[in-house]
């Protein structure tokens, strides 16, 4: 292969990848750019969608990325005039934060046990954890519903947070991380006469920090977007998290939906960019058979 050939190959590869990357990015770009349009402009562009199937064929929504006038009016409307948005935003925070914290703590502890402690039936139990991780939420829906009902949790965040704390994904990911910590490190501190607890606190925990960061990120992404649990367990609309609220805003108030989406996305994207290398590391770990 000549140098020129290799170069043109690379260029082609690059062009193809950039094309795909742009396609990947397209929804975000569309959402962000449309969030700077005025409500009136959004209304004009998207009224066909709300017209339903009866609207005449031949007239179609066009993709518009450049606002006629850049304005922050959508953001103003969402943040200042619709306290509902803020209410649902904090609902999401209230649901997500305890789950993330709980998963991190419980997952780290159990991950350490699965990776570094010996007990009978360990791998079989871990396999069961893995299986439940694969089950869609609906499988244990009825009993979870009945348990929540019995415990008086129905219609409260407890019904969602409690099962969320124990989601097997946290345990799975932390076990993968803990397994990657060389035993020699742990043995070294144990020789000094320290027990498992000190080994965990002084060796495993600091080394698993990226893992915890990855878990926090992945768990945040997952729970920030939760849909099934709230729609089934929470009946009052004002308790719903932002994910469910935004789905309704898309229908009724398209004019501000883009800005609301951007605001919804912002914490996730910022945290994603902030912890990207941990996230990548975490994802890599989930794919490594320890």
């Amino acid at each position, binding site marked *: 292969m000549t140098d020129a050939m290799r170069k043109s190959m690379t260029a082609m590869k690059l062009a193809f990848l950039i094309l795909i990357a742009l396609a990947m990015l397209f929804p975000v770009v569309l959402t962000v750019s449309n969030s700077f349009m005025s409500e009136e402009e959004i209304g004009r562009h998207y009224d066909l969608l709300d017209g339903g199937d009866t609207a005449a064929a031949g007239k179609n929504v066009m993709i518009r990325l450049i606002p006629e006038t850049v304005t922050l009016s959508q953001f103003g409307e969402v943040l200042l*005039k619709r*306290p509902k948005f803020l*209410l649902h*935003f904090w609902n999401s925070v209230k649901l997500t934060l305890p789950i993330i914290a709980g998963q991190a703590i419980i997952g780290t502890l159990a991950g350490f046990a699965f990776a570094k402690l010996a007990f009978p039936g360990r791998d079989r139990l871990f396999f069961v954890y893995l299986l439940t991780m694969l089950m869609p939420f609906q499988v244990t829906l009825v009993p979870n519903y009945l348990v929540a009902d019995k415990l008086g949790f129905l219609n409260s965040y407890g019904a969602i947070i409690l099962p969320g704390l124990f989601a097997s994904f946290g345990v799975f990911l932390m076990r993968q991380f803990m397994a990657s910590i060389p035993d020699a490190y742990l043995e070294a501190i144990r020789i000094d006469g320290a027990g498992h607890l000190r080994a965990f606190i002084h060796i495993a925990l600091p080394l698993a920090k990226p893992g915890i960061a990855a878990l926090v990120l992945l768990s945040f992404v997952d729970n920030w977007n939760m849909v099934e649990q709230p729609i089934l367990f929470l009946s009052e609309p*004002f308790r719903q998290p932002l994910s469910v609220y935004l789905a309704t805003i898309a229908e009724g108030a398209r004019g501000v939906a883009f800005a609301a989406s951007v605001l919804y996305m912002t*914490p996730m994207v*910022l*945290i994603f960019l*902030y912890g990207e290398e941990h996230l990548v590391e975490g994802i890599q770990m989930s794919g490594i058979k320890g």
Partner: protein
Amino acid sequence: MQTNMERRKKTLGWLIGLFFTLLLALTFLSNTIQGLSLPKVSVQKPDMGGLDLNVTGDGFLQPAHTAQLFAEGDWKVEEILKKKNDRVKRGDALVTFDTASTRRTLQDEKTRYEQQKLQMAKMMDQMKAVLSSEDSAGADNQKRDLESHKLDMQVQERKIADLEKQIAEGGTLKAPVDGIVINVNASEGAVASRGQPIVEIADDAAGYQFSIVADSNDASMLRIGDKVRVQLDEEPRRSIEGFISDIEDAPTGGNDESTDGTNETITFDVTDAKLQPGLKAYVSISNQSRSMGMQIPKSVLEQDNNGYFVYTVMEKDGPLGTAYYAVKTYVTIRDENGDTAVTDGLLPDEPFITESSEPISDGDRVRYS
């Protein structure tokens, strides 16, 4: 590269903190911001019970009956004994007249009567002559003339008697009833006109009356004959009993701004010894309407295709604090007076909106203090 990465992370960390701080601040301010942009309303809670129907008003007492006294002849007024507003008793002299002209007429008439007497004597003499001449036809004729003359004389006698009586009685105008002189239409030395009463006297026995105008809804519970207390504008103040003598539709005074309803003129009669015409009298009558319900001012009532409604305030406790919403509440009007209506459809403690800074519609969030 590493520092670059670190700087990026630092910036992102700041952005995350900034984002959450911003949203936190906006949440903290959300009620305030909302409050500033929400229509501000004033509310009131309805009073339970029947409608108070108040009729108040004042008027000037008018005599129910006036005795009008006329001069008996075209006399010059000699002396006015009672002035306007003087209290008089029956038989009191009011005005004396200079009856000289009538007396002269009487003199003349008496003279004429004397002449007729002389004429009579003369005719009697002629009669005797005719009777002696035995002219029967002439005698009859003479007899008839004599009879006619006798009748003339009788007329003249009555005329004189009349004039004498006129002078005797009419010379002094006397009060026919107890009462108050309300008008004297004469001046001393001037000839009293006969066309109009010289003195008018309000008759105590007949009493006084006054009228007020009231909203017909307010007056709906009033009946003719109802006894009422009437306050009199006197020193010291006192109140006497009166009764409603008349209720009739008042002529609508054009485009009256007060109410769209009709008005009633209510007349009250009062009888008392010491009343004066022109005295100011007040009445205030409170009644309760028969229908019970929630009382609301008529000004808050609005109307649409489904009937009358008011906006009530619904309180919703949310995580962002208490929020208030305007809710259309339909009511049925059971009764109304000038400014208040009794309605069904409201709860006793349900606050309704009386005023709002901007037009509101159903479901609007509002703020109220």
